[in-house]
């Protein structure tokens, strides 16, 4: 039954965005208010239908959302087109970031649970807090400074160098996911170039989530270590290390799946900042560009769209969690 909550959730999020959007005044005044004489401004507002009662606009807005229309940008491109063009870049970044988070967070969390209440544990926990406490853009700037500027081993910004991008454009069809496109070109140099560009943004964004995973795995493994079946294994003489790696960690991974749903929200917020730091041309980068251009209609269209995406992802994650854990049933 919880699955049905998706409908009111999406509805509420879209309504919140609508209220926020209209409370700002209409998008036309926001964009052109100081550029046009009042008469022309009023006419433009009238033409766009922003002078009608808000309830009419609201119903119309809901209808548009329902048909997948999230409005247009200042230069009359549909917001959905922005999603299609730039969404793949964000998806790619989020994938690599999650990969980093898993590789760093889960093993370290198990180590922290194994050495709990000793110095190693304290160091790992402070590391986890540091991951959370460091804004992704600051982490990104430090990584850039060290690896790109001082050591000169990794590229400063962007998703690929111009040469690679050109080569990928000659493909018969492109997915927009550069890693796949690079494999399709069959040129290892292009693939290497694309991967090298992804390293720093993925680490910057991934560490944010890695800290969360580390803490979660640690708490849950410690929790499982005091359950009866682990006690039973311990009494049979199973070594403490083996208890952590074989017995306790599996059930401790289930909450992670649930938390990933909430992490999507954090990742998307972080992606906006990471993409801006590394000029990674994804949804977040575009959002920041529209913010700078004061194109608020586009910003709110993208925000509404992301809200729907987050709600849908949570929904899917809930279902996956139910499939993995037989005790969770809706």
């Amino acid at each position: 039954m919880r699955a049905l909550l998706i409908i009111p959730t999406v509805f509420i999020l879209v309504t919140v965005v609508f209220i926020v959007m209209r409370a700002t005044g209409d998008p036309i005044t926001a964009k052109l208010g100081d550029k046009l004489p009042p008469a022309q401004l009023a006419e433009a507002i009238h033409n766009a239908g922003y002078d009608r009662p808000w309830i009419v606009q609201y119903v119309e807005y809901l209808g548009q959302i329902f048909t997948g229309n999230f409005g247009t940008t200042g230069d009359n491109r549909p917001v959905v087109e922005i999603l299609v063009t730039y969404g793949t870049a964000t998806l790619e970044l989020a994938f690599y970031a999650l990969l980093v988070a898993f590789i760093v967070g889960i093993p370290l969390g198990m180590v922290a649970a194994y050495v709990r209440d000793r110095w190693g544990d304290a160091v790992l926990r402070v590391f986890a807090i540091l991951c959370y406490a460091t804004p992704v853009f600051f982490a990104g700037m430090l990584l850039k400074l060290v690896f790109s500027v001082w050591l000169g081993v990794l590229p400063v910004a962007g998703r690929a160098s111009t040469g690679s991008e050109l080569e990928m454009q000659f493909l018969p069809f492109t997915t927009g996911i550069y890693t796949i496109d690079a494999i399709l070109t069959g040129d290892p140099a292009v693939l290497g170039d694309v991967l090298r560009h992804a390293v720093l943004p993925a680490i910057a964004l991934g560490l944010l989530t890695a800290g969360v995973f580390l803490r979660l795995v640690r708490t849950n493994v410690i929790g499982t270590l005091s359950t009866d079946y682990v006690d039973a294994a311990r009494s049979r003489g199973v070594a403490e290390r083996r208890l952590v790696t074989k017995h306790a960690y599996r059930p401790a991974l289930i909450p992670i799946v649930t938390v990933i749903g909430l992490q999507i929200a954090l990742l998307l917020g972080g992606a906006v900042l990471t993409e801006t730091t590394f000029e990674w041309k994804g949804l977040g980068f575009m959002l920041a560009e529209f913010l700078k251009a004061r194109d608020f209609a586009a910003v709110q269209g993208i925000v509404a769209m992301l809200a729907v995406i987050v709600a849908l992802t949570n929904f899917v994650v809930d279902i996956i969690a139910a499939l993995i854990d037989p005790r969770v049933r809706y």
Partner: protein
Amino acid sequence: MTATTTSATPVAVPKRRLRDRLPVVHQLRQSVGLQRGMLVAGLIITGLFILTAIFAPLLAPYGFAQLRGDDGAFGSQQPPSAEHLFGTTVGGYDVFSRVIWGAQTALLVIIVAVIASIIAGVLLGLVSGYFGGWFDRVLVVVCDAIYAFPSLLLAIALSIMISGGQSSLWGGILAAALSITVVFIPQYFRVIRAETVRIKAEAYVESAKVLGASNGRIMFRHVLRNATRTLPLIFTLNSSEAILTLAGLGFLGFGIEPTAAAEWGYDLNKALSDVTSGIWWTSLYPGLAIVLAVLGITLVGESLNDLADPRLRGRRRVAQAAGEVAETSVVPGGTLTAGPGGLDGLENGESFDEHGIEVKR
């Protein structure tokens, strides 16, 4: 409420001294070993942050918007020197002074945001949990929806609404703080509502009703006082999130104008292009300031969390520490006497499932 009216234990309970009942002091005494180390470190860093914020006018050698000293303009992107400890920014401001003044801005935003969200969240949670009904159900769904939303994006949308993106000192602080407030209200709402629903069923609430106490009196005197035990924890976690959201907003260009106040996120935004040319001082110091402030507050919050959870408390000396568990629910003659069985008061009404997720009964 008076604790001794119908005391079941005939032995007089010695009233605890004030310093033992203060939230953080009590936990400090309760903690042991590494946990105490983390709590103390957090308290020291947080204390330094607050002191820096309060005494910024005395500590900072220059004003946050000052471009020239006695001997001419500061110059742009000057490396650290005796005159400018942390160098100067691309706009010609003194980095050290702006880092110090930034603490003040951050503290103001935390105060406004957290106070506003506590008041709104606690009130909504109390009313919603106490009366129940359709109002409760609608609020729960709304708060769940907002909770799942990326907080930074919500804050962006709200700051467009509140200030249109431009900001003076108080305009900017209010816009940032209120944007953060809306994001935080659901957290307080959920916690207070859950506690209210639990406490509502307690016998002493029943008796207050029988005695003819008004709903308002029951809510604020009987329920609210006993529902606040988790607030210090959320308070610290939210404070650190407030700093990060403020910095994120500033980094995206929703910061407070440099002439109105110093803000770390804004300074990092301006430093982004410096990094490529190897200029490190404009980004390193404001960034470290954010990290330190958030680290300090989070260390305090994490320690409080661990000390409130008996499974996470230091395992070696749990037995000794167990005698000093916080007074959590004020039930006359009951758990108020935190004796060897004092844990009961803490775990009463909740249990943990296999994953360590708290389950409310």
